[in-house]
């Protein structure tokens, strides 16, 4: 079973992602803040991290870099999930090592497809 880490400071967004993907296929864990996200990632070694850019304590891009630079987490895929949709943000995300980019507001069906495809690629 694949493990998913949802990182967003908005409880509603986490609830939406969980409800969208909680079909019994994945183990879903949640983090509100960046530091918490990095700790949980190291602890649970998730297959996929859905990562918000605007976090209270640190930037989602920094979290992404932290995960991508950790050799223990080399198999972790990171998809940025953010309300900010400027092309510069996309560039920043790529630079930080993110594997994908998903913009709010998002369609749960599209998100499900994206997650499925990402996890399938991993296998």
């Amino acid at each position: 079973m694949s493990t998913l880490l949802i990182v967003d400071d908005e409880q509603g967004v986490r609830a939406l992602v969980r409800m969208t993907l909680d079909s019994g296929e994945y183990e879903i864990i949640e983090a509100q803040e960046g530091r918490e996200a990095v700790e949980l990632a190291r602890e649970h070694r998730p297959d996929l991290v859905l990562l918000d850019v605007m976090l209270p304590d640190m930037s989602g891009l920094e979290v992404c870099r932290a995960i991508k630079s950790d050799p223990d987490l080399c198999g972790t895929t990171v998809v940025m999930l953010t309300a900010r949709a400027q092309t510069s943000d996309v560039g920043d995300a790529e630079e930080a090592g993110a594997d994908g980019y998903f913009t709010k507001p998002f369609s749960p069906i599209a998100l499900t497809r994206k997650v499925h495809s990402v996890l399938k690629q991993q296998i």
Partner: protein
Amino acid sequence: MKDRWSTRSRLAVGALAVLVAVVAVLGTWQVVAARSSQRTEVEDGELNAAHLASSALGSALKSRLQLLSNLAANAELAPIFTKGTPAQLSKLAATLHLVYPGFASFDLIGAKGRLDARWPQAAGVVGKSVLDQPSLAAALRTGQPSVSQGVQQSVAPKELVVLLAAPVRDKAGRVAGMITASLPSSSLGALVGGVRLRDDATLVVFDQDGHALTGPASGDKVTYSSVTAVGRALGGRSGALIGQAPGYGQDHVIGYAPVLSTGWVVLVEQPMSQLNAQAAALTERLGAIGVVVLLLAAGTVWFLGSLLGSLARERQRAGALVASVGEGVIAVGSDGTLQLANPAMGQLTGLPLSSLVGRHWSDALSLVDTDGSPQAWEESIAAQAAREQQVVATTGYELQLNHVDGRRVPVAMTAAPLLADDGEVLGTVVVLRDVSREREVDQLKSSLVSTVSHELRTPLTMVQGFAELLVTRSGELGPDRAREAAGQILSSAQRLGRLIDDLLSVSRIDSGKLRVDIGAVDLAEVLEEVVRVTDSRSAPGEADAVPRLRVEIPSGLPTLMADRDKLVQILVNLVSNALKYSPSDQPVWARAVQRGDYVEIAVSDHGIGLSETERTKVFEKFNRADRAEVRKVGGTGLGLYITKSLVQMQHGRIWVESEIGCGSSFFVAFPTAPATGPGTAKDRNQQLEEVL
């Protein structure tokens, strides 16, 4: 500016005053010099007259004595003196008168000093000796002609005369007798008739003994040789002086000279009164000129003073205009030297104006770009405006001015070339404006856009996402999840509604369109609604959960004067904040207390608290503290701005007490409703119930 000009005008007026003083001193000196030169001139005049008179008198007497001597030298006369009859002698005397009509009388005197004949004939004189007269006796003895003065006793009236004596010699050279001729002293003046005397001057002749021959002292037998002028002239000197003239009681200007052939003295006397009168006239004339000069100078001073004054006023007005401009204004010469700076410029830089004016642009102003690199004079828009001869302005906030206190003030700069009438570029006028506020507002605006778009997008994401789940997977979700999804949609929609309400409120507050309807309000009833609206149950929607909001309100609290709905909004805002910014397991209090004429409501929490800086900015529009605990909680930074505005519109007060990490207490206070009337709202309700 102002000071410099008034100093200049004072200097100019002072210089003119000095000029006037110099003119006055010169005028006085001129009067004194003129008086002295006039005196000298008079003295010279009298001396000259004395010279001329003495010379004329000397030569007149000498020529007459010469005539007489020539006559006496005729050897044919000697026999008449020695052997002639009295009739012959009388005839000779009469003949002499006919030949030499210039004399008053002739005497023929024998060798023994006996007067033998006289013309005109006089009784009792013939036969008398003249040896009692020393000069005559000496002439007889020595055989030398002489001139002397004396009284001819026989001549009536007894008059002072000048006697010319010429001894007569026989062929052997012995003195045979003497001819004497007399001139009345009064005729001496006539002898010097060719000498012109000025004004009131008189000519006085003294003999070798100092006796006055003419003038008022003549005949008084007083020896005046002790009088300085007489004494000096008798000593052979000539000159002029001011002193007492013989026979007069007052000072005269006296010119004196010896009459060489006779040993006599001539004095020309000019009364001082005349000189004084002339000096007075001169002084008067000079005085009048002085007064005119002074009046002219005073007029000039007044005119120049008022001209300078009005110029200075004009300058001051122009200076005041520039000085009162709120923006920094500087005038820069084409070489980059600052020629003028107004006080606002001093405030912008923190430097005194003296350290700006006269210095070069690069030294006086520390202008830097956004990256901190200094801007050179050539790169400045002031230089650019002068080069291109057109108005140039900066854009954005990239240009910053270093203040002496270390701040970097963003400035907007507009430079306009200063052109002379002929089109020559004299320099540039630069206006500098502190755009800190604009920059702040701009930053606020972009942060608002970012905040609002984030605040809109997040609930919208949830509405859209949960709705899509409900639509596409209603079968899989089951009733509990479907309800949760619907609940999320509802709260997101409410959140969007509140956001729009807040934005509209701010817009109304800022445009002054928000109205309040103040009346007596029952706080207990208001707080009931606040509890309902905020729904502070730890698990919203569950009826048995414990509410976090604890309301404490004393009984008998008077009604307060407020707009009920706005008061609800105020307290909902404060309570929502308290719930948002404190841990979800901690209670929040709303406590009311009466303090004098006010009811004070405190909303307190054990939340994150505020730092001192945050406290001062907490009520500002779009202000949100920049730290993780705050960013974690969504918000626009509008709530407390709206709250404060609403409180103030209702004549209430709002303040905050807080410490970081220890929680916050927000206080609002509203005036109590007047005691007169139907009592508290509660009383009214009871009365109403009773009636019903």
